[in-house]
């Protein structure tokens, strides 16, 4: 009962997120990886993405604020950010990273900075959504779900 309701809420949240492009199928796959041998996988991976992204965004902001940014460094960062976002299933984030990479290759500092801001905002939205998800997940597990 309660468990079913929670499950349903989770499903709805996920569907909505996918619909909005916040998350994609990759995230849905990740959820499947959680099992008895890996019981906290989802929480761990979400936590990891939070930390990783926050740190990258901050570094990007710093580097792009410099007078003469090192675009190669920025590029390396963005490349990794794109990879981690894609691996996580953070759809919008990954797309923004692609755009940021292009701007970086063009040495377009202004556009880069703009995109980093977008990344920051998008991340904030994603983070909120994921926190909701995690709350529901916790409930579900407590109610006996796996």
């Amino acid at each position, binding site marked *: 009962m309660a468990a079913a309701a929670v499950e349903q809420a989770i499903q709805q949240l996920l569907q909505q997120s996918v619909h909005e492009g916040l998350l994609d199928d*990759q995230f849905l*796959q*990740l959820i*499947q*990886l959680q*099992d*008895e*041998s*890996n019981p906290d*996988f989802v929480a*761990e*991976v979400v936590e*990891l*993405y939070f930390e*990783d992204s926050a740190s990258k965004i901050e570094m990007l902001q710093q580097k792009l604020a410099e007078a003469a940014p090192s675009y190669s460094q920025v590029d*390396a960062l963005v*490349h*990794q950010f*794109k*990879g*981690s976002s*894609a*691996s*996580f*299933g953070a759809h919008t984030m990954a797309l923004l990273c692609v755009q940021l990479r292009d701007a970086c290759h063009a040495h377009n500092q202004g556009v880069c900075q703009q995109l980093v801001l977008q990344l920051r905002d998008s991340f904030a939205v994603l983070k909120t959504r994921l926190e909701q998800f995690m709350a529901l997940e916790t409930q579900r597990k407590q109610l006996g779900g796996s």
Partner: protein
Amino acid sequence: MDAGDDGSSGDNANAGAACSSGGDSGLFSPSGLRVLVVDDDPMCLKVVSAMLQRCNYEVDTRSSGQDALLLLRDRQEQNHQFDLVLSDVYMPDMDGFKLLELIGLELDLPVIMMSSNGDTDVVLRGVTHGAVDFLIKPVRVEELRNVWQHVVRRRSLHTGGRSSDEHSNQGDEQGLTHQGGVKRKESETIQVQHDTQGGSKKPRVVWSVEMHQQFVDAVSQLGVDKAVPKRILDLMNVDGLTRENVASHLQKYRLYLKRAQGLQGGKGGKGQKASHDAALVDSSAAAAAAAAAAAQAGPNSVFAQVAAQQAAGGAAPGGMGPGMSSPQGMMHPGMAVLGMAGPTSAAHHMAAAWQQQHMAMQAAAAASGALPAGMHPAVLPFPLPPGAVMTQHMAAMAAGMPVGLVGAPAMAAISDGNGGFTPMVFPQQQQEQQHQQSPQQVQQPQQQQQQQQQQAGPGIANADLQQSPSHTAAVPDGTPVPSPVQPPQVQPPGQQPGSAVLSGVKLEPGGTGVAPAFPGLNDSAMTAHHDLMSSSRHLSLSDSAALPNGHQHDGLKIHGGLGDTESLMDALNPDSFLADVPLPRLDMDDFLDSFLSSE
């Protein structure tokens, strides 16, 4: 990292890491496959790990290429090596391709590359660097589920099909599924073994040069397009060799011939005969291709060595061509006919093979800049009659190596009878017309055998020599072998340097018996082989015990061996030719593998 958990895949009747019950039957399970994942991105590392664990693989991770290499080397020493490596392409400390190369060179493990960059050129780089697969991120669990096939494939090639090759080839079709719970059919394929060392987990059939020679002879006799493993095996008559071993080797050999055709720019012929023909004429392309491949593969790879041979050239002069027409009109690139349609003998091949080895060394040295390009006269421990011309081609043929690889018409040498050689240059055009030249007389050389033992790497050649009393034996303690015997004579009439004519190698008679006719292998040829192989052991210099890097290997491992000039110079110095230089054995099967995976 977590060990692969077998408990969650309840259907695995035979699950478990060391599930080798040996033989050709039994249930196949990829469970417990040991995978190392290398990625600087912790997220990716975590996700891929989890996916692999879901596939019941045993996973370790490292976030840098350097750390990965350290771990891999440790594991190698502990006899507890991984089965497979997955590596990201773009890593800050070490380029993924570089890591891939190093792993391939040192450890011979299958490596799968990953990247979020799926550009064709990137993927191509992966392939040319020897990756067995290339995955685009984000990787899906379904893609990872089947990575075991790369391990199995490599193992089945290495062991010459310790289980049935047919089954291993059908591995994918046997309906082994691992979707949620594992189902498997009662079918027999290769077991995943974890009880032996290194990248090659089972005792391996080592395809020595002589064995490969026998193989090639047998194939020639049967016809390269028609040879079947059973008949080859019968002809080879090697104890302990199975039909499966031969089948696997044959498969590789055929692939090799095909690729050699490609390497030659494919002169539009069909089949291996044509590939061979093409090889003869398109030597410069071959040399270039080989050089490029060698450059890529690095100086220590077998591939480079072969390429070096190419670069140093050795067009078949005339009648000495690889795969020369035999009386039967059979041409086969692997045919170790020393340039004549007449009878030759196994011993010829060995002699030529030795020379090839030596030339290869020189070529390798030249390629790595240690020596000026060009050939140094080699002091052979046995006499070649004057006028006899040794070429790389011949030597390659002798070794049974597809001569498709031997390229530029630069190099050959005329024996001056003192064991010295004078370089010759052969115009390319003459090769073809020489094909038809009938061989000059071929004398039965004394029963000599050089067993070439060669490690990948600008090599040191090791030769086992058995010589008749009339020649000074090569002794393993480094006593230099004196020049053998025959005084130089004028070249046979009608043959001139530069005219790509070859009388064939005439070795001094004095051995036991008469050269059996070739290509019709007969009993005495095979017997000769056997005699030679068994009796030359005492001169063997190579023991796995003494590999330069201190590694012990069952068979050939490609690893960065002697790359430095000094060792090369040592090796090339005739005086030290048979010194205590430990020389690993050349495993022709590994050579083929290396070639096939290096392109």
